[in-house]
């Protein structure tokens, strides 16, 4: 048991944090009675510990605990959607590019190379400026900016897997290409997809916060950690809690998920490097 904890301590810690945050996000309506949008100007900017408002209130008298918890929902929803979208699109692109090394693979990989030469957040911001504001559009822009990582990783895996003997054997038995790709190659690259996904998940959440912080992305009054942090700047001198709690929530969430990601990488594939 001690050995297990020793080897997997960080993973367990990460799992606990991630699970707690996830539960908080999913069960937000059960955990707090207040509506995160319900404002009562008369009780604005109350410090933590105020009766009925354990984390205090913001400038419009909205309950900060409710906003932080519902913010977790928004963050996880965006993170999850982006990971699923990029995993499907990027994974498929990588699968095809790896299997068909000819012009198809070349085209996909050159597109990916061009995209990788731009910083991720800059690219996401640019796409966001084109498609517009809002929850749906932030998911779209993060996904468009983020699929290449999957494509690169999966293609690399496919290139080695497809030369393995069982693939040759399957092909010799006359299996169709679709079946070969999905039943024999995909399961062998799946661990990589999971690892990339878990690491990307945290990145998406942080990127979404950054973009919302800049005023793009999720629009008020929807509670999002990034825009809450941005709004808190105007009140930093009189209400520290407005910045502290959303900031801590973001940091803890990212930490938890990253610990899980690292642990998964060690367990599933010690050689793997993103």
């Amino acid at each position, binding site marked *: 048991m001690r050995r297990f904890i020793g080897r997997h301590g960080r993973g367990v810690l990460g799992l606990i944090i991630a699970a707690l945050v996830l539960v908080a996000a999913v069960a937000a309506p059960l955990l707090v009675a207040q509506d995160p949008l319900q404002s009562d100007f008369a009780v604005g900017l109350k410090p933590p510990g105020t009766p009925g408002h354990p984390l205090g209130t913001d400038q*419009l*008298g909205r309950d900060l605990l409710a906003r932080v918890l519902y913010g977790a929902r928004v963050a996880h929803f965006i993170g999850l959607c982006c990971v699923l979208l990029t995993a499907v699109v990027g994974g498929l692109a990588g699968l095809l590019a790896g299997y068909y090394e000819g012009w198809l693979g070349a085209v996909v990989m050159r597109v990916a190379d061009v995209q990788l030469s731009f910083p991720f957040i800059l690219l996401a911001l640019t796409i966001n400026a084109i498609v517009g504001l809002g929850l749906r559009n932030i998911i779209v822009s993060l996904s468009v900016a983020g699929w290449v990582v999957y494509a690169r990783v999966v293609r690399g895996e496919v290139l080695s897997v497809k030369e393995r003997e069982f693939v040759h054997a399957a092909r010799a038995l006359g299996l169709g290409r679709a079946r070969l790709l999905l039943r024999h190659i995909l399961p062998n690259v799946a661990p990589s997809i999971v690892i990339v996904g878990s690491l990307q998940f945290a990145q998406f959440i942080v990127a979404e916060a950054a973009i919302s912080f800049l005023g793009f992305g999720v629009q008020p*009054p929807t509670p999002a950690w990034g825009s809450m942090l941005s709004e808190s700047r105007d009140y930093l001198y009189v209400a*520290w809690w407005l910045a502290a709690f959303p900031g801590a929530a973001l940091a803890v969430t990212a930490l938890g998920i990253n610990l899980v990601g690292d642990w998964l990488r060690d367990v599933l594939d010690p050689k793997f490097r993103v």
Partner: protein
Amino acid sequence: MTRFTTLLTALAVLFGLAASAPAQDRARAKEVVVAFAAEPRTLLPNTIVDWTTNSQIEHIYDRLVDRDPKTYKPMPMLATGWKIVNDTTWEFALRQGVKFHNGEPFNAQSVKATMDYIKDPANKTHYLPRWSQVKEIQIVNDYTVRFITEKPWPGLLDRISESTDFLPMPPKALKDQGPQALLAKPVGTGPFKFVQWVRDERLVLERNPDYWQGAPELNRVTFRYIPEFSARLSALLAGEIDIMKDVPPHAVEMVDRSGKGKVRATVSSRINYLALVNLKPGPLQDVRVRKAIGHSVNVDELIQQVLKGRASKMCGPLSPLNVDYTPGIECLKHDLSRAQALFKEAGVDPTKLQLTLDTPSGRYPLDKDISLAIAAQLQRVGIKTNVVVNEWGTHLDKIKNRTTGDMFYLGWGPALSAQNTIEQLFQASQTYSSYGGNKVIDAKIAQAVTIVDPKKRLEAWADLQRVVQDEAPWVFLWQQHDLYGVASWVEWNPRADEKVWMYEAKLAR
């Protein structure tokens, strides 16, 4: 206050102490640092309509006619007097013995050259349409000029003194070297001379010892650019700057207690309003729906709770500071049952209404917070309001291109005359209007601007204020209060017309 806040303040003060040496040096050298949100978009006067730009230019160039800092009535500056000669002719007597910074004398040629500059389409100035009424400038003698207008224009004096609409330029330099030379090295008659403009960083001016009103007390004025007001506030508390605009209401007490400076407040002539756009299809075409929204917004609550009392409520389109203001217009009361009745009458179910509200962020005192608070108030009658926060340039473009949502938040000022507000904002043909297409209002405005008799003119504008108010084109909000943070060693008080003029700044005794 909590311990953390105390700690934060203590840190700020500590950093302030560390950095206070330069502030003392500045006091000794009589050099004031003013922080604005943005640098000037040009240093050419009479070119771009933008408060930030012209507030800086005004230190170098003088107005022809100023406003009295107390009564806001037109007051002689480079012009010493004026009279109406006939319906289409204004005559101005000019001050003698005034010199531009390059030694050129100020005279009638300067006034004419300035109007020629504005009228030349090649210069692309924003002021061209604002002076379209003026046909020509006649030089009577060296120190007397006449403005000849197309139609009777009694509002000319308000236009010339309202803002920075006419800042005389040096005629010889303008002719010989062209506007580009004046852009690179501005030459005016003002209290300060141009020294240096480092783009995106600072503009430095020095005292004009030969200023015609007497040399300013300050030796140097430096403008610095800090877009975020929280950063401006930190800079003030750290002693890096001496004057800043827009201290947030909730931070006033903290600045006053900091020992670094004091907040100087003034009721501004700038008005803030929520436009209910009728220039695009939607439920707000119906005056009953607009009025119902007006009844749903609780203006007093916004002033008390969000702005901490730092605003003066308005009931109609003009504030009491406006020379054409008429008293006695009744406010649309906060009355939810009246609102429901009006919604019913108009056949609109407020719980099915989805509206969009465009707001800037950081341009006016707590603009975004107000917009969010209004959305929350509308939520109480069931209206779902989607708040879109825009970057300032985008916000203006949306208004100009009529691509805002159903409502938008805006400030307007300095608003000292009716023509500059009612003519500009309630006709579909105007750049920044949100409301228009009302033939009665259009006709009344066209008539009002040409009435020469002061009493009849006032009556015409009073009538228009009532008609406009009854149309509920806006949710009428308030005059904003301008809160300036001023370092302890500087004695300076803000003005309602938003002129930030360091000639009036002195060393604190």
